[in-house]
């Protein structure tokens, strides 16, 4: 049971960590000062949420586990984030597209998790939901600006959505940990979020004059630790310091 709960927490928290890391890569490289700050703000929100989840997971695990060992010292297969969040910052449209698709899912998830039978998870969700509501607002706004902007921004935004679409279905797959936690009213049944997700996403895309992709085959694997080729590079950046100077502090 504890093991399932820990794995369930990873399934939620690793999304926030990995997306936070991706956004962190953009620090100092945003298209302008204001957008740069906005996206690093979101990265910090996500890292803050990650810390709360990992501190809880570390307590459940015992054995000298800390939030840092969980974040920095696991192997690639042990990260349970969805493939969507590890996709690279190909250009600003990809960063916004990835953010938007994740934000819409993230908000639906946290609204349900706030009613979890696990008090700690419910408390973290209640605190995070306010942050994520703003994330949805920010990324939806940019989807509309780029989609309904110039010819070039429209094409770039459409390409990003088309490519990232293949990673949306995985958001609604259940892992063994998911099933175990749903049966105890601790976890959220993600299969039930699917319809609301596609309704909301389609609404924003249509307002942005973008096509909703029609895809039959989707990518999956991240939730079970089978990641895309981008993940190794991301982890190399993320873990470098702790691997090179073990137990380093500042």
């Amino acid at each position, binding site marked *: 049971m504890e093991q399932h709960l820990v794995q369930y927490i990873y399934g939620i928290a690793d999304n926030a960590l990995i997306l936070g890391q991706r956004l962190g890569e953009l620090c100092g490289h945003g298209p*302008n*000062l*204001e957008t740069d*700050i*906005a996206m690093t703000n979101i990265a910090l929100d996500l890292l803050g949420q990650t810390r709360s989840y990992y501190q809880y997971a570390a307590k459940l695990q015992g054995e000298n586990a800390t939030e840092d060992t969980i974040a920095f010292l696991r192997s690639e297969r042990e990260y349970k984030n969805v493939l969507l969040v590890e996709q690279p910052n190909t250009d600003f449209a990809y960063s916004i597209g990835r953010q938007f698709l994740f934000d819409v899912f993230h908000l639906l998830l946290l609204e349900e998790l706030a009613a979890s039978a696990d008090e700690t998870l419910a408390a973290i969700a209640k605190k995070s939901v306010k942050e994520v509501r703003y994330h949805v*607002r920010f990324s939806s*706004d940019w989807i509309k*600006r780029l989609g309904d902007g110039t010819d070039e921004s429209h094409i770039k935004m459409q390409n990003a959505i088309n490519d990232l679409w293949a990673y949306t279905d995985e958001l609604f797959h259940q892992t063994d940990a998911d099933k175990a936690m749903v049966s105890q009213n601790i976890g959220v049944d993600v299969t039930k979020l699917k319809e609301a997700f596609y309704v909301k996403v389609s609404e924003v895309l249509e307002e942005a004059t973008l096509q909703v992709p029609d895809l039959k085959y989707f990518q999956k694997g991240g939730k079970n630790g089978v990641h895309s080729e981008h993940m190794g590079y991301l982890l190399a950046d993320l873990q470098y310091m702790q691997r090179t100077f073990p137990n380093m502090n500042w």
Partner: protein
Amino acid sequence: MKNWPLWEVFIRSKNGLEHRHCGSIHASDATMALENARDVYTRRMEGVSIWVVPSKEITASNPDDSAELFDPAKDKAYRHPTFYELPDELKHM
């Protein structure tokens, strides 16, 4: 993006106080200006309300005119309400 207009940002730090000018940002329209102001100027709990105003809508006095505009007030101390006793409860006067 280089052509985004400039906006002046005013933040109310808590209810009951007035909005104060705190800086400026670039944005393509009012909605984006509010969001940018939120992200740039309220990250450390500085505010409970934001106003944004297009900088070009502000009419400013000319620094060259400051002699005629402001100097005449210098020797009129009687205009300051320094002869009233204010109750301690009255803050922010």
